[in-house]
């Protein structure tokens, strides 16, 4: 298991997503701040250990910032719009209270803030923050484009559309900056609304022309070549997909609604999944493409997904263990139950069992040259 001897390679993106989903399942089951902080630490450890130098790998930092603001917001809302107090609660500070109409009874704006309410808000916020960071970690570790490429064939067109949209974005920005600069060469805009038209029209025209050229280029290169499904087959696929989705919804509702028999919900869920799988298989049959350098699914992928899913399973087995949802009255230091800690450590192991990411070759090869567009385009941020 020593990391130094293993060949660096990118892990299959699905492995990272499975791992993150497992850890998210762990975090959703507890409000214990110690456990939640431990989960954050595990996420941070794996991300720091295994992320590449690609742009998306910086995502984790942004998610962390958002997560922290979620905690802050939760605490703020809870303290300002406080509920009723019990006499045993500890008062931290007393804010000036806003008078509210009588029909608004039960909710105060301002007034005394209790330590219990603040803590419960913070625990809750922390759980949300953990969930967010799980998504952030998966985003930072898995190459989003490669994740799209493993979509089933039926969703191939969707993946292509997303990739095209992503690669068109920089071109759109470039075109917008160019047009905005060109606008300065004509007279001052008269009014606000009239000033928008000269900016938007050329950019939109540009985008339309570009999409036509792109469509032509894709056609020339064989896109949609083996996509001839008969209208009948297409209708069957669509119907199966819609029925499957409806059945899935019904199933989920049945599972969560205590008044319905669980067997009914389970049945609907099973039928729904089967229909969806059928639709995907049917849809995939008509798409005949191959993937360039497909990501392998080998031992490290199994290990990483096992780390995440194993943690989730351990946590589920610890259902009802004392200390998962610490009580706030009486107030005391939360306990640290052993089983969940074990689960989180197992998840953190992913940072060791996964292969190290390949070193980036891009920086070294990158020449200084850039497309022969006028320089003011690229640097107009400095002007603005």
């Amino acid at each position, binding site marked *: 298991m020593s990391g130094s001897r293993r060949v660096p390679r990118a892990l299959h993106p699905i492995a990272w997503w499975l791992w993150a989903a497992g850890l998210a399942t762990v975090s959703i089951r507890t409000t214990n701040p110690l456990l939640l902080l431990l989960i954050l630490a595990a996420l941070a450890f794996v991300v720091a250990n295994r992320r590449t130098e690609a742009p998306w790998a910086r995502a984790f930092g942004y998610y962390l910032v958002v997560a922290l603001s979620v905690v802050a917001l939760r605490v703020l809302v809870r303290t300002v719009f406080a509920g009723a107090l019990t006499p045993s609660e500890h008062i931290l500070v007393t804010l000036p209270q806003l008078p509210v109409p009588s029909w608004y009874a039960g909710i105060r704006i301002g007034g005394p803030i209790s330590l219990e309410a603040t803590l419960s808000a913070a625990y809750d916020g922390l759980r949300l923050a953990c969930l967010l960071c799980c998504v952030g970690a998966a985003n930072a570790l898995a190459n989003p484009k490669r994740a799209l490429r493993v979509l089933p064939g039926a969703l191939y067109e969707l993946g292509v559309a997303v990739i095209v949209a992503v690669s068109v974005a920089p071109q759109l920005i470039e075109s917008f900056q160019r047009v905005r600069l060109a606008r300065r060469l004509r007279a001052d805009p008269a009014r606000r609304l009239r000033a928008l038209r000269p900016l938007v029209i050329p950019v939109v025209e540009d985008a339309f022309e570009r999409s036509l050229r792109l469509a032509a280029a894709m056609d020339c290169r064989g896109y949609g070549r083996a996509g001839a499904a008969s209208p009948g087959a297409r209708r069957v696929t669509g119907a199966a997909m819609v029925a499957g989705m409806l059945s899935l919804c019904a199933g989920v509702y049945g599972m969560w609604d205590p008044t319905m028999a669980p067997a009914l919900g389970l049945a609907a869920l099973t039928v729904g999944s089967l229909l969806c799988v059928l639709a995907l298989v049917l849809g995939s049959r008509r798409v*005949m493409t191959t993937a360039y350098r497909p990501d392998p699914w080998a031992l490290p992928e199994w290990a990483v997904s096992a780390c995440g899913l194993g943690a989730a399973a351990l946590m589920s087995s610890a259902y009802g263990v004392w200390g998962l949802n610490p009580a706030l009255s009486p107030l005391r230091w939360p306990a640290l139950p052993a089983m969940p800690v074990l689960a989180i450590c197992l998840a953190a192991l992913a940072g060791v069992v996964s292969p190290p990411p390949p070193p980036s070759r891009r920086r070294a090869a990158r020449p200084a040259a850039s497309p022969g567009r006028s320089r003011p385009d690229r640097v107009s941020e*400095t002007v603005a």
Partner: protein
Amino acid sequence: MIVFDQVTVTYDGQGEPVLRRVDVRVAEGELCLVVGPTGVGKSTLLGAVNGLVPHFTGGTLSGRVLVAGRDTATHRPRDLADVVGVVSQDPASGFTTDTVEEELAYAMEQLAVPAAVMRKRVEETLDLLSLADLRDCPLHELSGGQQQRVAIGSVLTAGPSVLVLDEPTSALDPTAAEEVLAALTRLVHDLGMTVLLAEHRLERVVQYADSVLEVRCDGTVRHGSPQSVLSDASVAPPIVELGRMVGWTPVALSVRDARRLAPPLRARVASQPTEPAHRRSAVSPAQALRARRVLVRYGDLVAVNEVDLQLHAGEVTALMGRNGCGKSSLLWALQGSGPRQGGSVDVAGLDPHTLSRSAARRLVGLVPQTPGDLLYHDTVAAELAEADRDGDAPEQSGGGSAEQILDRLAPGIDRGVHPRDLSEGQRLALALAVQLRAAPAVVLLDEPTRGLDYHAKAALGHVLDTLAAAGHAVLISTHDVEFAASSVDRVVVMADGDVVADGGTEQILASSPAFAPQVAKVLAPLPYLTVGQLKGQLRC
């Protein structure tokens, strides 16, 4: 390999066919150059090869087009992807992925080529087009020439036997164009590919062509050896014009061939041209614009390094230099809209940088590299009306309305047409008319020759002469040596943000071996630049 059998193409809503009874056979391994003025149907001809016309563009095609035995009537473009590779003018608009390697593999993925074969072909193509160092690069970070090479590679991986290129170098600077053409000739010679190539700048490619296909204005075509077709085609590079005038048969196509024929010619003409390459109008000694120590920098990058420049009323000046040497930055700084970190610009005692937009454009007018960016109305008429509203130039300038200016620059443009539907040259004229309506003393044009054919360039030269005669100071940035030789009075060369040379056209252009126009290369050491200069000599 490619057979056109009595092909006539008519677009919907147009009475006249674009192509008329085209009967052409392009043999295997042939590099066929498609020539003709802008807008005559060269693109239609190229599009018909892989069925884009009419499957994608609409219109009616009668007759038959066969490529490697496949009829385009029954094969859509996607069904011909493994036989015909198509490369367009703007490579970036055709990219569907975002790194070099994935772009090269895209066509093969569509053709369901097995993964192992794909990997091997991508590696081979990377080597063939010298792209190996760039394999992981994001496509939008590449230079124009690199992007075009990737575009060629991305159709090559599908293993086509025919390559169709529609003006692959017209958006590139000379170095990048050389890079692409070198890659192309290598493909022709090493792989024996059949290539159909349309190109404006014939002087770059004509020497590599095995045959030339001329598309005429009435939609008919003529196919033959380069020498025979070019000897009286409506478009011709300077070297062919020289050959026609002197009466060389067959006409020389490369500088090398012409130089071997040239000694008797050099003996016949005087050692000094009797007239300048460009008949200059009266240049007034008054400086229209004086720039001192202009500095433009973007962070650490110094784009324009303390440049001094004077422009005179009535003089046409060309600003030359490779891409990224600071030409555009200098133009934008002179106009006042672009950033300027130091120095001063003085036009009639005022600095345009400190004025409002409206006031600045009355001193200095700039037409940007993409003239269409200036235009945003539905019709030419609306665009002109807007220019009249914005213009409110002082009456004494005598420029007249925008409509009158446009008629002087490019007569006969339909007022009801959408500006996007104009030809490249007409759109440039419209943008220029809009800017001239404000009657600026100084007119700047950023790369106006890009994408223009010989006729449009000659027309642009006339426009510049008219402006100079009306007392404007004109500065254009350009890569086109032939255009500069025949149309400007003075050349300023920039490199790395500095002005490295500044002087008369003859002095600057004739003195450099690589930068010289074709006529100068053939006649060196005699200081002739254009065919026009020789004309007078040979008559007497």
